[in-house]
């Protein structure tokens, strides 16, 4: 009844609730980074389910984040203020809208995942990338959602508590899932798809399940992001945003939730650090340009990691020692 992990989750949530009272004292700049860390943890831990544990390769996570962001914003804009004074308070509407955004993203994940997950990793990468671009293109044309102008006017509901509560729930769900029968299924699909199939595992089912869950969490993260920034734009969910998340997963170690959490935190702070570096005038001009453009560093990081340490910076604690990802 009261397992350790559940008690731990509740304790964490209570701690965050307590801590959130002090969050007002943080300067807006650091608060912004803090919320960014929470959102990136949700995104990266979710994506790790697909790219890490299940051994697939999704390259369009920002697309699902966009679906969640727009869906939840649309919901709060439509229902938030009319209901706020009446039966439901605004926080409830906000959380329901977040879940709605998550479900919308999950649905999108299902629609994309069912056809494309029958295929091998390379194709999935391209299809998800394509879906990312298509969803961006559709949003740029969708007049009711602001099209090129972006969508604004949401109230700032996202606070320290909700961000890190959802991050904790994401980690809790992923860790428990990976320890369950389903998790064994994911790992089996990753380690040897043919052998898994021969053992009677419905590989497509497991792949789709991982994909849909990851999309759900991405949708939640999108909703949190939208209600923090109070303004969203299709370009904010482009391919490069997806790459950000993928780099977090790879740096942390595919299939290593703790490592991914650390990597998500580090990589959220890194751009701020680089921005500071690019202002050092004693550095050569070209180095300052490199510091300004974090994608150059990210791409080199990807290549060097794959050549020297494919298991990621923090190794692979949870996977089997003989896993194919070594």
């Amino acid at each position, binding site marked *: 009844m009261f397992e350790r992990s559940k008690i731990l989750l509740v304790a964490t949530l209570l701690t965050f609730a307590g801590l959130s009272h002090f969050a007002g004292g943080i300067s807006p700049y650091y608060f912004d980074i803090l919320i960014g860390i929470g959102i990136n943890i949700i995104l990266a831990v979710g994506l790790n389910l697909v790219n890490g544990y299940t051994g697939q390769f999704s390259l369009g996570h920002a697309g699902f984040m966009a679906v969640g962001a727009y869906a939840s914003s649309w919901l709060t804009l439509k229902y938030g203020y009319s209901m706020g004074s009446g039966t439901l308070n605004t926080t409830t509407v906000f959380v329901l809208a977040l879940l709605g955004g998550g479900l919308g993203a999950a649905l999108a994940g299902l629609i994309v995942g069912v056809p494309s997950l029958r*295929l091998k990793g390379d*194709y999935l*990468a391209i299809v998800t990338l394509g879906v990312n671009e298509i969803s961006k293109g559709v949003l740029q044309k969708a007049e009711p959602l602001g099209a090129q102008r972006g969508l604004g006017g949401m109230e700032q509901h996202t606070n320290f508590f909700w961000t890190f509560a959802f991050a904790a729930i994401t980690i809790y769900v992923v860790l428990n899932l990976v320890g369950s029968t389903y998790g064994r299924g994911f790992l089996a699909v990753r380690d040897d798809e043919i052998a898994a199939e021969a053992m009677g595992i419905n590989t497509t089912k497991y792949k789709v399940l991982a994909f849909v869950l990851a999309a759900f969490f991405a949708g939640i993260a999108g909703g949190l992001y939208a209600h923090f920034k109070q303004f969203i734009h299709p370009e904010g969910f482009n391919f490069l945003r997806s790459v950000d998340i993928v780099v977090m997963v790879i740096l942390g170690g595919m299939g290593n939730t703790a490592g991914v959490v650390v990597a998500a935190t580090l990589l959220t702070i890194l751009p701020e650090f680089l921005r500071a570096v690019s202002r050092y005038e004693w550095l050569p001009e070209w180095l300052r340009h490199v510091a300004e453009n974090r994608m*150059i560093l990210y*791409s080199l990081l*990807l290549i060097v990691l794959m050549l020297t340490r494919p298991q990621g910076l923090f190794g692979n604690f949870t996977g089997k020692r003989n896993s194919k*990802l070594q």
Partner: protein
Amino acid sequence: MIEFIQQLLNGLGQGSIYALIALGYTMVFGVLRFINFAHGDVFMLGAFAGFYLGPKTLRLFGEGPSYSGAFAALVVAMVLCAVIGIVIEKLCYRPLRDRPKLTVLITAIGVSLFLENAGQLVFGANPQSFPELIVDRALEIPESWGAISGLTITVSQVLVFGVTLLLLFVLRYVVLKTKMGMAMRALSFNPVAASLMGINNDVVISFTFGLGSALAGAAGILTSIQQPSIDPLMGVNAGLKAFVAAVLGGIGNLPGAALGGLLIGVIEALVVGYVSPTYRDAIVFGVLILILIVKPTGLLGVSEREKV
């Protein structure tokens, strides 16, 4: 009707570019069974090779635009891209050859991102206008030819299509009639058996990368002659569409890649002409998803059984 033919011609012009890039994807997939994500960026590098070296090669053949100068620029870009392709393979893909596919895929994405962003740093992020290598003008079709005299055909369109056809025939000759081509086919059939027969797999793989990258470089020059505005991210979209073309034709299948490229170009032109330019990119990915669901082996591909 005349408008339809016009769209078809425009589509063939763009399609031949896709076909040239798609051939590189398909050849590399044939020998290594992985998708070289960075291929589209090699195409971009080809265009920039023309941007920087084109004016120099023109000067070799006198003042102003000339066909011989343009041809020299084409050759220079092809050679440069071939070298770049071989270097990329040596540095980034060869050390990973026995690793899981996912590792190689991530590296390829890394290489692609690196070329795009380093390109923005070195070449500048803004679009630049490509130097005029040939004098582009509309060909005049005599009135006496009847209805088709209403068509607009430009010199560049004819040139692009002609050069593409020429390159396709050269490629066909190389793959089917030379020893190296035979080695490529053997490697794609069974790498272990090929190396047992005395084929040096490393050399063949380098050659394949060089050949594919040279075609991408040629495509870079040709596309810039048609649409003289180039930027470091031009390879992303073109590369993705060429990849879709390769899948449409059946990945690993050379005639399939050429056919797929032309088809994608025509589909795109027809959508732009008759539906809306908005759906230009969406329709291509729609085609990809459709083909993956209905016939994952592509139009000309044969299904390959995975062995344990």
